[in-house]
C-alpha cells in the first residue's frame, strides 16, 4: 500500500485540480474519476502487487483519457482558471528549469521592493563544435509564487515596474537580450510614487526604443500590467494562457452594470471570457503574439519537465531569430534563418552570438517599432476612397521632401550666411561710431523731448482685444437654472446661474475655482485661432472588431449622440499663427475609451506632426481607458501609440498632453503618460484605475481626492495644473519654451 501512496496522492491532486478548473462543470466525468480513485484505494489495501500494478495503470490511463477529453472541451474561462491556479508553473520554475544558471538580482524572496516582480541574470549554455558558450540574458517577469501571499498574485506595484525599467537599462548597457515572462493579472492600481499609470507609461516608452533583443512570453497577460514588460521583438504565448484587456469578471461587471463589488453570474463571466477573445489562438490570429508554445494537457504544472525543454528551445529560437534579422539579411544569414524554422534542430547544439553592432541595434529598434505601428492595422475601418488615400500618400512624400529641402539644406546654410552678414554689419557700426565721435561731441546730441502733457490727459489709441466673451459657448448656458458647486458645503460657494457659469465663467466656480466639466468643443474652439481648424482622417470609424455581442448598437448610439465617427478627433490648427497638430480624446464618446480607430487616428496624427515638424498637442477631454469590447485590439494600442509618440519625440518635436475631467487606464498608462509635458486642467482626475476598481482589487479605501490633478502634480506625474481660462495663453507659452529642436518655427 505504502508504495502506491505517492501515486495515489498525485492522482488525488490531479482530481482536485480538475475540480478547481471546472467548477460545476463536467461533474459526471469528475465524479467517475473520484469513484474510481476511491475504489482503487480500497482495492489496494487488499489485493496483490500485480493486481495493484494493473489497477494503478488502468486508473492512470483513465485519468489521462479523461484529461484529454476535457482538454478538448476547454472554454476560454477554463483557461483563465488554469492560468490562475496555484499549481501553474511560475517564473521560479522557469528560472530553475529553463536556464542553466541564474541569480536573482534586486531581491531575495520577500526581501525586495516588490516581490511580484523578479529580475534575474541567467545563462543559457550552448555548445558549438564541442565548445561551450555561456550566453547571458536578463530574465524578468511577474512571480506568482504558487499563491504565496506576499507575491500579490503577480500584480506588480509601480516600484516593481520601475525596477524592471531600471534593469532594462542595465541590459541595454551590457548589450544582453531580455527575456520577459508575463504572469500578471494586471498592474496593482496604486497611485503612490511613481504611480501605476505613470510607471507603466515610462516602461513602455523605454521599451519602444530599447536597443537589445526583447522576447516576451505570455502566460497571464492582464492588460496594462502585462504591457509594462512586453513591448517585445517576439511575443510568445503559452497555449493555455490568456492575454486580455480586462479580467472576464471585470468585463462582466461592466456588461452587467454591476456596482460596488457585486458579483456577476458565472454564466455571464463565461460569456465575457469568450467574447473577449483572450486565448492564445485568438491573439495569434490577430497578430499580437508571434507564436504559441504548446502546453501539456490541461496546462503546464511544475512536474511537466518536458515542457520546460520546449520553452527553452522556443526562447532560444526567438532570440536567435531576432538577433539574426537585426543583423540584416545577408544571404548566409538567410540560410541560417531558414534552418531555424526546422523544429527538429536542437538549438543547444548550435550557437548564435547575441550581441549586436550599433547599426544592428538601430535596425532592431526600427523593426520593433514598425511591428507595433502596423499592429491592428487591418482592424481599422477607414472609409476613405482609394484616390483619397493615394493623395494622402503623395502629400506625405511631398512633406518629407519639402522638409529636407527647407530645414536640412536651406535653413542650415541661411543661418551661416546671416551670421556672417550680422558680423560685418556690427563692424561697420563700430567704425562709423568711431569716425563720427568728434563731430557728435561738438554738437552735443539733443536729449529726447520731454513727455507730452497732451498724452496724459487725452484719449489714447488702443486696439482693445474684444472682451466680448468666448467664441464657443456650451449649450448648457442656455438653461435658466442655478447650479451648485460640489464643494459648496466645505467652501461656502453660492449657487451660480447656468448662463453665467457656462458662458462667461468658462465653467469655473466663481468663488472656489472648481472647474465644472465642459464639452470638448470648449477647448477645441476657444483655444485656437478662429477658423483655423482643419480636420483630417475623418473617414476612420470606430467599429466592433471582435463582434462583441450588442456592441454594434452601442457604438452606433455613441456615433449618433456625438455626431462623431470615433472617440478621437484629429485636426490641424493655428495658435497665434503657429501651426499645430491636435488630437482630442472625446470623453463623451463611449467614455473616451480607446480602440483601434482612436489608436489609428492618433498614430496618423503623430506621424503627420512629425512629417510637418508641427507641435503635437493631445487634449484628453476624458478617457475611461482601453475600450474593453475590442479586447486585445484595444490593448495593443498602448504600445502602438507609444511607439508613434517616441518616434515623434525623437524627431525633435513638442508632444504636450492636456488632461481634463477624468483620465484613467491604458491611455494614461502609455501614450499619454509618457509625455514629457503633461498638464491638467484644474479639478481633473488622473490615475490608473478609478476609485471603485481600487477598492475592489486591493481592498484599500482611498480618499475622495486620491486622483485629483494636484495629487498627480505632487507625485510628479504631471508638470502643471492650468486654469481653463488660461489654456490658450499657457499653450502659447509652451510652444515657445518647450519641446525639441526640430519644430518648423524654430
Amino acid at each position, binding site marked *: 500500500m505504502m508504495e502506491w501512496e505517492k501515486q495515489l496522492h498525485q492522482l488525488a491532486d490531479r482530481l482536485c485540480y480538475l475540480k478547481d478548473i471546472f467548477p460545476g462543470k463536467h461533474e459526471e466525468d469528475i465524479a467517475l474519476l473520484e469513484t474510481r480513485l476511491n475504489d482503487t484505494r480500497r482495492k489496494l489495501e487488499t489485493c496483490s502487487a500485480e493486481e495493484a500494478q494493473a489497477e494503478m495503470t488502468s486508473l492512470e490511463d483513465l485519468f489521462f483519457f479523461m484529461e484529454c477529453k476535457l482538454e478538448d472541451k476547454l472554454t476560454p474561462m477554463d483557461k483563465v482558471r488554469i492560468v490562475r491556479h496555484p499549481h501553474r508553473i511560475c517564473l521560479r520554475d522557469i528560472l530553475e528549469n529553463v536556464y542553466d544558471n541564474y541569480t536573482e538580482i534586486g531581491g531575495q524572496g520577500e526581501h525586495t521592493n516588490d516581490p511580484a516582480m523578479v529580475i534575474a541574470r541567467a545563462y543559457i549554455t550552448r555548445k558549438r563544435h564541442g565548445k561551450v558558450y555561456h550566453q547571458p540574458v536578463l530574465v524578468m517577469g511577474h512571480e506568482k509564487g504558487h499563491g504565496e501571499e506576499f507575491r500579490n498574485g503577480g500584480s506588480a506595484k509601480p516600484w516593481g515596474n520601475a525596477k524592471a525599467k531600471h534593469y532594462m537599462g542595465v541590459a541595454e548597457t551590457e548589450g544582453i537580450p531580455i527575456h520577459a515572462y508575463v504572469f500578471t493579472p494586471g498592474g496593482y492600481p496604486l497611485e503612490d510614487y511613481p504611480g501605476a499609470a505613470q510607471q507603466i507609461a515610462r516602461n513602455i516608452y523605454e521599451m519602444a526604443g530599447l536597443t537589445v533583443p526583447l522576447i516576451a512570453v505570455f502566460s497571464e497577460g492582464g492588460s496594462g500590467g502585462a504591457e509594462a514588460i512586453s513591448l517585445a521583438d517576439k511575443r510568445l504565448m503559452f497555449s493555455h494562457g490568456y492575454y486580455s484587456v480586462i479580467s472576464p469578471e471585470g468585463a462582466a461587471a461592466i456588461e452587467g452594470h454591476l456596482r460596488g463589488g457585486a458579483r456577476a453570474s458565472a454564466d455571464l463571466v463565461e460569456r465575457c471570457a469568450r467574447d473577449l477573445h483572450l486565448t492564445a489562438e485568438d491573439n495569434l490570429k490577430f497578430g499580437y503574439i508571434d507564436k504559441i508554445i504548446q502546453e501539456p494537457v490541461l496546462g503546464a504544472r511544475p512536474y511537466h519537465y518536458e515542457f520546460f525543454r520546449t520553452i527553452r528551445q522556443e526562447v532560444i529560437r526567438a532570440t536567435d531569430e531576432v538577433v539574426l534579422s537585426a543583423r540584416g539579411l545577408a544571404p548566409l544569414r538567410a540560410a541560417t534563418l531558414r534552418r531555424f524554422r526546422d523544429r527538429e534542430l536542437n538549438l543547444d547544439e548550435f550557437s548564435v552570438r547575441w550581441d549586436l553592432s550599433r547599426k544592428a541595434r538601430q535596425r532592431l529598434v526600427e523593426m520593433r517599432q514598425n511591428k507595433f505601428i502596423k499592429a491592428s492595422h487591418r482592424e481599422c475601418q477607414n472609409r476613405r476612397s482609394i484616390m483619397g488615400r493615394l493623395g494622402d500618400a503623395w502629400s506625405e512624400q511631398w512633406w518629407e521632401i519639402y522638409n529636407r529641402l527647407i530645414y536640412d539644406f536651406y535653413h542650415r546654410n541661411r543661418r551661416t550666411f546671416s551670421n556672417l552678414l550680422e558680423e560685418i554689419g556690427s563692424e561697420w557700426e563700430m567704425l562709423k561710431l568711431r569716425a563720427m565721435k568728434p563731430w557728435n561731441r561738438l554738437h552735443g546730441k539733443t536729449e529726447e523731448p*520731454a*513727455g*507730452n*502733457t497732451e*498724452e*496724459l*490727459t*487725452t*484719449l*489714447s489709441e*488702443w486696439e*482693445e482685444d474684444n472682451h466680448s466673451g468666448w467664441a464657443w459657448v456650451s449649450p448648457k448656458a442656455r438653461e*435658466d437654472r*442655478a447650479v451648485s458647486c460640489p464643494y459648496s458645503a466645505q467652501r461656502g460657494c*453660492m*449657487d451660480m*446661474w447656468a*448662463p*453665467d457659469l457656462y458662458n*462667461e465663467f468658462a465653467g469655473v466656480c466663481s468663488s472656489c475655482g472648481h472647474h465644472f466639466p465642459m464639452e470638448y468643443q470648449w477647448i477645441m474652439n476657444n483655444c485656437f485661432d478662429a477658423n483655423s481648424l482643419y480636420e483630417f482622417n475623418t473617414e476612420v470609424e470606430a467599429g466592433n472588431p471582435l463582434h462583441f455581442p450588442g456592441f454594434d448598437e452601442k457604438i452606433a448610439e455613441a456615433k449618433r449622440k456625438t455626431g462623431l465617427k470615433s472617440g478621437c478627433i484629429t485636426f490641424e490648427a493655428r495658435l497665434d499663427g503657429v501651426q499645430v497638430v491636435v488630437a482630442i480624446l472625446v470623453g463623451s464618446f463611449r467614455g473616451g475609451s480607446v480602440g483601434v480607430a482612436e489608436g489609428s487616428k492618433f498614430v496618423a496624427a503623430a506621424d503627420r506632426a512629425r512629417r510637418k515638424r508641427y507641435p503635437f498637442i493631445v487634449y484628453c477631454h476624458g478617457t475611461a481607458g482601453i475600450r474593453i469590447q475590442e479586447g486585445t485590439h484595444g490593448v495593443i494600442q498602448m504600445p502602438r501609440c507609444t511607439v508613434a509618440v517616441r518616434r515623434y519625440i525623437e524627431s525633435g518635436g513638442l508632444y504636450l498632453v492636456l488632461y481634463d475631467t477624468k483620465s484613467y487606464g491604458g491611455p494614461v498608462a502609455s501614450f499619454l503618460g509618457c509625455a514629457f509635458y503633461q498638464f491638467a486642467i484644474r479639478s481633473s482626475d488622473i490615475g490608473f484605475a478609478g476609485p471603485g476598481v481600487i477598492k475592489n482589487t486591493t481592498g484599500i479605501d482611498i480618499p475622495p481626492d486620491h486622483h485629483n490633478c494636484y495629487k498627480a502634480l505632487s507625485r510628479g506625474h504631471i508638470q502643471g495644473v492650468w*486654469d481653463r*481660462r*488660461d489654456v490658450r*495663453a499657457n499653450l502659447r507659452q509652451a510652444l515657445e519654451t518647450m519641446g525639441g529642436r526640430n519644430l518648423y518655427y524654430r
Partner: protein
Amino acid sequence: MNKQHKVLIANRGEIAVRIIQACVKLGLDFVCVHTAEDACSGHVALAREIGGEKSLYRISSYHDANELLSVADESGATAVHPGYGFFAEDFRFARRVTERERPLVFLGPSWRVIRDLGDKINTKRLARSLGVPTVPGSDRPIYDELEAEKIARSLFDFQMQQGIARPLVLVKASAGGGGMGIEEVYDIDMFRQVYRRIRNYAMRQFKDEGVLIEQRIKDFNHLEVQVLSDRTGRHPVHFGTRNCSIQSTGRQKRLEVAPGFDPSSIKYDFDAAALLDEIVMHSLNMARKVGYDSVGTWEWIVTRDGQPFLMEVNTRIQVENGVSAAISRVKGKEVDLIAEQIRTGLGDPLGYTQDDITFNGVGVEYRIIAEDPDNGFSPWVGDITRFSWDEHEWCRVHTHVPPATPEHPYTIPTEFDPNLALAIIWGKDLAEVTAHGLAFLDTLRLEGHDGKGEPLKSNVEFLKKKTERMLRF
C-alpha cells in the same frame, strides 16, 4: 405707471426701510427679505406692519441671488430694487434678473450700462472721448516697461510744471480694485522696481499684466453729481452736487453736504460756482452719451486750485441721496429720489425737465455709527438701550434700529456695516444748517453697553467737530 407691479426689496436696514416707504408712497405692493440675524431689524418690523407676514421672507443670505429670485417668484414680485451694496452694481445680477425665463424689472440702470461704467478703464476712455477731465496718466493698460517709464517720467514733469512740490505717481493693476495692487512712486528712479512688482502681482492675482499709471492727487475735495434719467435715457437731469470730503480714516464717508461748495459764504481759491456748473455739465454729457436710464452718481475730485477730475460713476442709488433731495424741489414740490428711481424704472417718463428743478438752502447728512473714531474707527458691538432724538421740521432721521429700551435692547448684528442711522438736516444757508446740525447732535440720545458692560461708543462727537469745518477746503 402700472400699479400692478410688486417690488422685491433685495436689501436690508435703512435703505430697505426707505424703499418700503417709497413703494407705499407710489401705491406699489412690495416684498421684503431678511436673514435670521436681522429678524429684529426695523425694516422687518415696518414690512410686517404695512404688508403683513406675507410680505416677509426669511432667506439664508442677502448675498445669494438665488434666494432673492426664488422669493421673487414665490411672492409674485415683478421688479427688484437692489438698494446699495449687495447686488446694486452687479451687472450679472441685473442681467440675470432681466433675462431669466420669468423676467423682472431691475430697478437700476440696464445691465450693459452697469457693466460699461463699472469698468474703470472704459469709463476713463469714455470721459476722455467727450473731453471730460480725468486724472492725468494712462487710459489703457500698459504692458511695456519702456512705455510705462515714459509715461511715469512725463507725469513727474507734468506735475513739476504745475508747481506741485512733491509729485507722486500711482502704479496700479488695471484689473485690480478695492485698493489691491496699488502703489505710490515719489521718485522716478524707483519706478521700474515698483512697476515690476505691481506687474508681477497683477499677473499672479488677475492673470493680466496690464498696469495703469496715473498722477496721485493729494489734497482734494470729494464731490458728487446726482443724476436721474428715465428709461429712454435721453433726457437726464441732475439734482445738484454734494461734498463728501469728510470721511473716516478708512475712506468711508461720514458726513455729506449739498451743495458741493458754498461760494456765498466761503471764499475759495477758484470760481466755485463755475466749477460746480462744469462738473454737472460733464456728468450729464456722459449720462446722455451712454443712455443712462436710472439714478446714478458721478464722482469727482477737485484739487485745491479748482481742477476737477472724474473718478468714477456709481450706477446705483447712494446712501446720501436724501441730502440732495433735501435741497431740491421739482415744480416746487419735495422730491424722493428713491421713489423717482422706482417710478422711472418701472417705465414712467420723467415728466419734468431740468428747468422744473430748483435748489434751496443747504443740506447735511450725518451717518450715525457705533464706532470708536479715536481708535481707527473700529466698530463697536453690543446692545443699544436707548436711541432717540427731538423731532424738527428741518430734520429727518432714517434708521432701521427699532425703538430700544433698557428692557428691550437692540443688539447690533455683526454681519453688516455698522451704520445705525442717517440724519438729514436742512437750513436755509450754511450758518443755519450748522446751527441745526449741532442742535440735533447735542440732543441726540444714544446709549448702550457691550458684553463687558462698557458703554456704547459712537461717532457723534466726531460729527460735531466736523460740522464746523463743512465745505471748507
